[in-house]
């Protein structure tokens, strides 16, 4: 009798032990996979830096592309990237924030709102190359903007619009109702409530979304290739700022350009291994910029979250 109870107890303990072991094994597995994923990122970055080490230097940033690998640089690429990003921010930021404000603060619950929301969700899932085809058909041919900085900037702005909208909506949603109600109680109109109270509180979230959107745009290659950007650009666009009146000009918007990812793609697809070194160096810079922007975004979010106490 006592023996039977003992065996049953032993069996129970063994079974519980097995299950607990399974628990621990799973934790181990989860940690291993997570670690492997993060390790991949580290290996990727370090490998790029290692492979491209020979090319890091002042010359690399101040030289135009060239047929001789050791003389080629990314001057036209980083200038092009900066100008394209300028256009992207100028279009995506106001558009995205305005759309998000409408959806979060104003939109009534009706079919128009439903359609807009479905569209924003769907656009986030549209492959980037489709935006390239849209730009090729619409901006390059229908609107005759050509293969210019304006076309590229607009294309990338459309591409990151859903990211900006979603991030801004989240930031607006985080502002408590009580703040809006207090402002209404003092007689503010809806726009005054939004502009004076809700928007300032959500600046951190909006900035985070914008930076993350830009970090996506900076690395996008496919849509820019589709609109017909060239890799071999041995001149710079017209400078946007000049010493003479009116100091600012917009002719650069219609200039030809190249961007960092296209320059890198061009080097990767060459059979000559000397160009692979250039590709690695450009890749390390591009990846470094992306990681930096994401780091800044995380930091901004953290800072603003800490500063605000509801």
């Amino acid at each position, binding site marked *: 009798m006592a023996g039977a109870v003992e065996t049953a107890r032993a069996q129970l303990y063994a079974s519980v032990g097995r*299950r607990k072991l399974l628990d621990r094994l799973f934790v181990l597995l989860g940690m291993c996979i997570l670690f492997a994923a993060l390790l991949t990122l580290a290996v990727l970055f370090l490998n790029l830096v290692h492979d491209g080490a020979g090319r890091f230097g002042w010359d690399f940033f101040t030289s135009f592309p060239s047929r001789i690998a050791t003389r080629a640089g990314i001057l036209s690429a980083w200038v092009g990237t900066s100008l394209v990003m300028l256009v992207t921010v100028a279009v995506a930021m106001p558009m995205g924030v305005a759309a998000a404000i409408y959806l979060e603060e104003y939109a009534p619950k009706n079919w128009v709102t439903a359609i807009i929301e479905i569209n924003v969700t*769907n656009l986030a899932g549209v492959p980037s190359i*489709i935006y390239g*085809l849209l730009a090729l058909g619409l901006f390059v041919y229908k609107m005759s903007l050509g293969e210019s900085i304006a076309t590229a900037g607009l294309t990338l702005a459309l591409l990151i619009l859903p990211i900006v909208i979603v991030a801004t909506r989240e930031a607006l949603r985080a502002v408590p109702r009580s703040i809006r109600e207090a402002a209404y109680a003092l007689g503010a*109109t809806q726009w005054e409530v939004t502009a004076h109270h809700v928007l300032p509180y959500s600046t951190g979230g909006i900035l985070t979304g914008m930076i993350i959107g830009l970090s996506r745009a900076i690395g996008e290659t*496919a849509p820019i*290739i589709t609109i017909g950007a060239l890799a071999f650009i041995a001149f710079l666009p017209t400078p946007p700022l000049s010493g003479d009146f009116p100091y600012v000009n917009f002719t650069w918007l219609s200039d030809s350009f190249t961007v960092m990812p296209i320059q890198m793609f061009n080097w990767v697809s060459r059979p000559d291994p000397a160009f692979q070194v250039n590709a690695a160096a450009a890749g390390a810079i591009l990846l470094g910029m992306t990681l930096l922007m994401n780091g800044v975004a995380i930091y901004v979010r953290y800072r603003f979250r800490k500063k605000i106490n509801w």
Partner: protein
Amino acid sequence: MLRRLRRRKIRDRVIESLLLLSGLFAVFITAAIVYILVSESIPFFRHIRLVEFFTDTMWTPMFDSPRFGILPLLAGTLVTTFVALCVAIPCGIIIAIYLSEFAPHRVREVVKPFLELLGAVPTVVYGYFALMMVTPFLRHFLPDLPGFNMLSPGLVIGIMIIPYIASVSEDAMRSVPNYMREGSYAMGATRFQTAVRVVVPGAISGIAAAFILGISRAVGETMVVAVAGGLQPNLTWNPMESAATITAFIVQVSLGDLPHDSIGYQSIFAAGLTLMVTTLIFNIAGFMLTRRFREVY
């Protein structure tokens, strides 16, 4: 006083309509995408019959006697997507279960942003990674692997979409109410049993939506395959061969200088339309699944 009030109200109305316009801009983009893809494909489908488009086994738009069968490109897309999902689904799900059910709060807060970085790496950099690091590495084990193949871009796309699958499934798992977990613990279940038998089934439609998001990312991924896949349309289901995907073909054509009204130019819009329809189907399915999922609790 009243006049000022009225002025403020009018200003409010004007601003509201401006905001609405920005919102409607999203609808305009979708409409423009559909319009451009369809209107630029129509001339293409005047030349090539739909039956030929879907049954011909050759895609050679640049040859003197061009053939336009989408199957080789579609096969390339499906093979790379399949390889990617073989990596991303198990890894993504395990990471999601670990982060949602096992990891301490602090670990989750620290790890998640790092994990999202995997999805933020520029795709052309991933292309370089696939071509210059993953393929040579795989060749240690598979000596016959050609320099351009679908296996290595597929694996790399898989790594790239892990964060999408992990974070969407984790959100789904975390919105499973706690009382369900507590009920399971009260019956003596361990964490692992609770996770696998209660939380995952409870979040299953959200997890399915995560898969669909991952699938549409993998289908639409361009640069990794364009760099490491070989750009050679090839009707094969073997990931160890080189092939082109729909997206890689579009990039390849765009690199050349095509006249506006040539059949080659029109063919990239037809390819794009095929791609769009494929992802749209996945997205609609995903939207409906998330909608259903929301109604559960």
